[in-house]
């Protein structure tokens, strides 16, 4: 219960640092800013408690100083009670196992929350745990943003049991659902809330402690900033959260920046600072702690030309999962149709983002030495989660005429009815 209260208060308050925004955005921004602040200040051994307090104070100041929340586009406020009920129902039901059933996933316990426990216990991101002096630390150089958030909850509650942090993952999912609902279409939020890969899948879903939902949420938020085309800095902040959440954050940042150039043009410069700082911090930290069993994709990248023969198998094996009805229903089939339609309309933002991110994963599948099918089967559903924001946007954009009025410049001007 304490974990629930801490999660429900800490992150939305800290997330107000970017001004008064809708609660889901504040929550997600808070998840990003608390983890990022703890990471950056942790490099200088600033106590975590101070980092957390600073984030909260900055959030409160942001709430007080910033003006009233920008009203949403009226088109997003269409009453759709049925969609809202359909969206809230699975989230409410998921709260029951979140509160009761013990965490039982693989990566969440083996990597992510083990790190969170170590951070909370050692109060450092480069302590004995990260030098393999306590246990063999698996995936030692994985980015730490989400474990730092979990550690913040553990520190605040004074309890490192995973039951305190389960709400972080459910609320992050809920925030993503509401963000998608608000930015695309209420029915898209409902579809996302029920998607088995997000809702009920034991590995990577809302009932697990993986970082994939947070990553998907940051990517979706960054993408929606591109659609809004208002704040390059906020876009850059989402990119920095991506870089600090998972290793693939860095190449995906490059993809998103490439896409963003067409949106922000000269205004792109301020967007580069946050991911640059996050990347520098990540590199500095990685220089301090040893690599253990993680795959060094960067070192393997030069082998890409020699592994071109893996391209077609990687695409085909991945494509099979678009048709995995048990994980995705018809969502990805619809998404790809929508993306093709948008591409034919020369509305490039969503197609370029999805294809670009997908290309990063295909390249990763090509350069590793693992059998393609094994690797794809073990990971691609989680990687597809990352692209859910742009994918649902594409569906909403293509299918919902009224949704066309939600997106303004530069690429999606309202069309006459």
């Amino acid at each position, binding site marked *: 219960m304490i974990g629930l209260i801490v999660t429900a208060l800490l992150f939305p308050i800290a997330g107000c640092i970017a001004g008064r925004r809708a609660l889901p955005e504040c929550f997600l921004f808070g998840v990003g800013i608390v983890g990022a602040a703890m990471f950056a200040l942790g490099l200088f051994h600033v106590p975590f408690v101070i980092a957390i307090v600073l984030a909260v104070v900055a959030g409160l100041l942001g709430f007080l100083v910033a003006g009233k929340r920008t009203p949403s586009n009226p088109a997003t406020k269409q009453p759709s009670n049925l969609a809202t009920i359909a969206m809230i129902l699975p989230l409410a039901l998921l709260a029951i196992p979140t509160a009761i059933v013990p965490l039982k996933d693989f990566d969440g316990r083996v990597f992510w929350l083990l790190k969170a426990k170590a951070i909370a216990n050692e109060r450092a991101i480069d302590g004995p745990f990260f030098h393999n002096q306590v246990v*063999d630390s698996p995936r030692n150089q994985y980015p730490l943003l989400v474990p730092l958030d979990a550690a913040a909850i553990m520190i605040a509650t004074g309890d490192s049991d995973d039951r305190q942090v389960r709400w972080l993952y459910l609320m992050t999912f809920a925030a993503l659902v509401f963000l998608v609902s608000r930015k695309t279409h209420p029915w898209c939020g409902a579809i996302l809330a029920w998607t*088995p890969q997000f809702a009920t899948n034991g590995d990577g879903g809302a009932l697990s402690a993986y970082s994939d939902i947070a990553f998907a949420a940051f990517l979706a938020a960054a993408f929606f900033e591109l659609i809004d085309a208002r704040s390059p800095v906020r876009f850059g902040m989402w990119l920095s959260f991506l870089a600090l959440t998972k290793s693939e954050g860095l190449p995906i940042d490059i993809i998103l920046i490439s896409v963003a150039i067409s949106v922000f043009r000269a205004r792109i410069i301020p967007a580069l600072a946050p991911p640059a700082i996050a990347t520098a911090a990540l590199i500095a930290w990685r220089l301090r702690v040893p690599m253990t069993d993680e795959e060094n994709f960067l070192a393997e990248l030069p082998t890409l030309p020699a592994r071109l023969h893996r391209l077609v198998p990687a695409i085909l094996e991945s494509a099979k999962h678009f048709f995995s009805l048990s994980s995705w229903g018809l969502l990805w089939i619809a998404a790809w149709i929508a993306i093709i339609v948008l591409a034919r309309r020369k509305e490039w933002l969503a197609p370029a983002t999805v294809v670009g991110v997908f290309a990063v994963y295909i390249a990763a599948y090509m350069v590793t030495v693992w059998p393609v099918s094994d690797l794809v089967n073990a990971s691609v559903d989680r990687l597809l989660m990352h692209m859910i924001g742009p994918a649902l946007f594409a569906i909403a954009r293509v*299918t919902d005429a*009224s949704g066309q009025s939600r997106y303004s410049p530069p690429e999606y001007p309202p069309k006459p009815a």
Partner: protein
Amino acid sequence: MRRWREAIFIILLASVVIPAAPGLAEWLRLAWELRSIPMRARREAVFGDFYRGVEALQRLPLSKPLALIRVSPKTQDQLFINYYIYPHRTTTYWNRWMYATSDEKRRPATIVQVGDEMPRVVSYAELRDFEVRKSRVLRKIELPQQRRAAFVIPLVTSIDGVETYTVEGAMASDEEAHVTLTMQPEGLVKILTIRGPVAFYDLVYQCFRRMQFAAWVQVSSDRPVRAAFWFVNRNAKTAAPIRLIDAPIDRPMPFPSDPTAHLWLLNLGDSATKVRAGEREWNLPPRHLSMVDATGTVTGHVYSFLSRKQPNGVTQFIWPEDLK
């Protein structure tokens, strides 16, 4: 047109609700089952014996680092143990050999057996036995027709060095027989009741619960039994038959002088005895088995034999009865 688009959303929603519903129902069912018990009991209910083992490890003092040794190549349990017992210090060993060959001064003394069964603290000998008892080198044991009420197994072992050595074998009796095995020179006794065949994958550990480099075993029974034993190199998967004996051989035993071989001198008696091999002489304590260099013909009131390890891992024995 608008209805048509709404229909698309409804179809998409149905396409995710239908596969999600069983999974969600399963989560809710589990939550309903666990709702009234504390978290510790919930974990026991979900993870079973594994978590009960973890709870026992959580009670160990933090000052005692643990060696997590995997006994199953597929297990990942060590990762979850680390998760649940953190901040307890652990070192993971991928198998028993990694532990056995690691630096004795730096490795944790407390061993946790990981995989196959619930994690638990064990001795090295127990860990080894867990692995050894899963398989045998001898696929089929054919016992001789000869029945004996008393005999000696002149060399037994249960040891890990560069390789794992055990003694495999069997005894059989048509009627119920009470067999007493006495491992010498310590005089450790094990009494077995046998009816039909009884097989051994590691005679010394099975009967005496200890690892032993070299010893010998006196066997006596109230009914004659059929028996056969082999000296087994488990790594090389080879087995050499061990001759079962009754008494010392008092005549000179002309063993060759061989720097690559070991000469074994066994005093079966209750008093010390002098023995000579080539130019060298020893005073063997009572019930004592000694390994010396093979320096030539043996004389004395002892039973002696020669062993030589072949390049392929096979141990070759030369028994005095084989000498001409």
